[in-house]
């Protein structure tokens, strides 16, 4: 992207996370992470399993408390943002409630936040339309395919108009065709809603295709090895994956990765 002065949304400073394993020893999940994320940016956290990318995401979501360093979202802590119900999180598995219809699943966060019945219904309908699942509003999750369930997952996370969208490998369990379609859908929705997105993945091509910047994390201990600017034009189409520039960037990202087995 260009070098204009942009508003910093998330400031991650000297972040570290230490776990204790079952024997009481220490695992350094993350050390010394410094990262600034701009408003409206699409950022990927990329790395193999065990490098701390999910941990980093969970720290931003206030599902974990850091052992060192700090995270600020705007001028607030993650906890305040979460308690303010401004967080949109998409997990690896769809986490839909079996006993609720698709539409009622999308309404779940709205119920928690005490939205009024008619408004809930309207918002749910528009979310389902955005992901193209209006026809399935009254189906049960068990009747949908994996890709469709993930779309419901995304619709649900957008229903509360969050400031921040955190996505933890949402497409890793899907086949390539569904994945490509969902990439396009995601970018379209992102363009329309202008959210700040932090996207965790282990797939280099996915990261390069979707993001403005790719943050490469390496394991043992988990650390930020480097950040690669993706200066590809938007809107991005599938065809861009054939271009030389795309593949240069993929190589650059791969080389930024440092150490540890894949």
């Amino acid at each position, binding site marked *: 992207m260009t070098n204009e002065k942009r508003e910093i949304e998330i400031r991650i400073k000297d972040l570290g*996370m*230490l*776990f*204790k*394993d*079952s*024997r009481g020893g220490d*695992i350094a*999940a993350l050390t010394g992470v410094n990262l600034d994320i701009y408003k409206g940016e699409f950022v990927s956290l990329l790395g193999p*399993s*065990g*490098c*701390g*990318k*999910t*941990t980093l995401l969970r720290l931003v979501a206030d*599902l*974990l*408390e850091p*052992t060192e360093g700090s995270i600020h979202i705007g001028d607030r802590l993650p906890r305040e943002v979460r308690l303010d119900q401004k967080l949109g999180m998409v997990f*690896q*598995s769809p986490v839909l409630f079996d006993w609720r219809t698709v539409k009622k699943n999308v309404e779940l966060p709205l119920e928690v936040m005490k939205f009024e019945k008619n408004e809930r219904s309207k918002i749910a309908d528009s979310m389902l339309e955005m992901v193209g699942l209006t026809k399935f509003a009254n189906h049960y999750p068990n009747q949908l395919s994996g890709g469709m369930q993930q779309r419901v997952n995304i619709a649900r996370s957008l229903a509360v108009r969050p400031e921040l969208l955190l996505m933890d490998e949402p497409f890793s*369990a899907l086949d390539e065709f569904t994945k490509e379609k969902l990439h396009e859908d995601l970018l379209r929705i992102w363009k329309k809603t202008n959210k700040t997105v932090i996207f965790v993945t282990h797939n280099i091509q996915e990261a390069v295709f979707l993001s403005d910047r790719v943050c490469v994390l390496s394991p043992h201990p988990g650390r930020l090895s480097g950040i690669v600017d993706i200066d590809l034009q938007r809107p991005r189409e599938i065809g861009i994956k054939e271009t030389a520039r795309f593949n240069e960037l993929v190589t650059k990202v791969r080389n930024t990765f440092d150490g540890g087995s894949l």
Partner: protein
Amino acid sequence: MKTINKITSQKWFPMLVWLLAAAVIWELGAAVVDASKRTPENVLPHIWQIVGAAYSSRRVNSGQTAAQLVLASAGKTLSRAAVGFLIGTLSGFVLALIMKISKIVEKTIFPYLMIIQMIPILGMAPIILSITGDINTSRVVIAAILTFYPVATGTLAGFNSVEHEKYDLMYSYAANKFTVYTKVLIPYSIPYFFTGLKIAAPMAITASILVDTLQGDGGLGTLLSQSLKHAMSIYVFWLIVIFAAFVGIFSSKLMEIIEYLVLPHKRIRIFGKEAAVWAADAKGKKVFCGEFMRIRR
């Protein structure tokens, strides 16, 4: 202060508190009963009274103390329960195997299995006694029937839990049916088998005691009814009750222990397709740390 914190955060602490609370409630109850009844021991004696009776050397009947009496009759009851239990376990397992091998057998027998669950076998103990005529046989028969159902259905569920990919794998090795059964189905069914055993063990014991009550010949149940009718000290009754409770619980735990010995691999909790690994954050709170499956141990 630090030691107090250390103690209260131990894993066994809540359990200890529960047990102490239970004991306190019992004692309170006993005290209330004491104050309001002529013969409080009949309703709810104090814990120390029961313990005292267990250790007392007073002869309760011809030549035995209370404790000896209970243990002697327990031996009889439990050994017969064990025989019935073993027979039931074996036949349950075999039937489950046959039902898996032959669809026809499964379809024929399955409703009857359900019926066995639905009808109160224990309630039919008297008639089984009459049919077999011999108290020992009837004891074994009832224990066997009661064990048979949980073991058979549990094992069958275990067999049916094997995903079809496992079959495909074996098919690709051109494995014959026998191999599939011994290398895949039976190992997979073992946890379910043990679940059935854990349910069946206390039931076999209950059955054995119940049959005792029907016809006196020295088992725990006979002792129970005699003591109830005041043919001997009421403390024998209480000792039997406590003993039976402990033995029931213990038999279930014993199955757990055997299962652990047979399947020594520690079970990582498996959620769907991924194994979730838990660690503790700095404050000792359990958290999901997802990716760290390859921690060196």
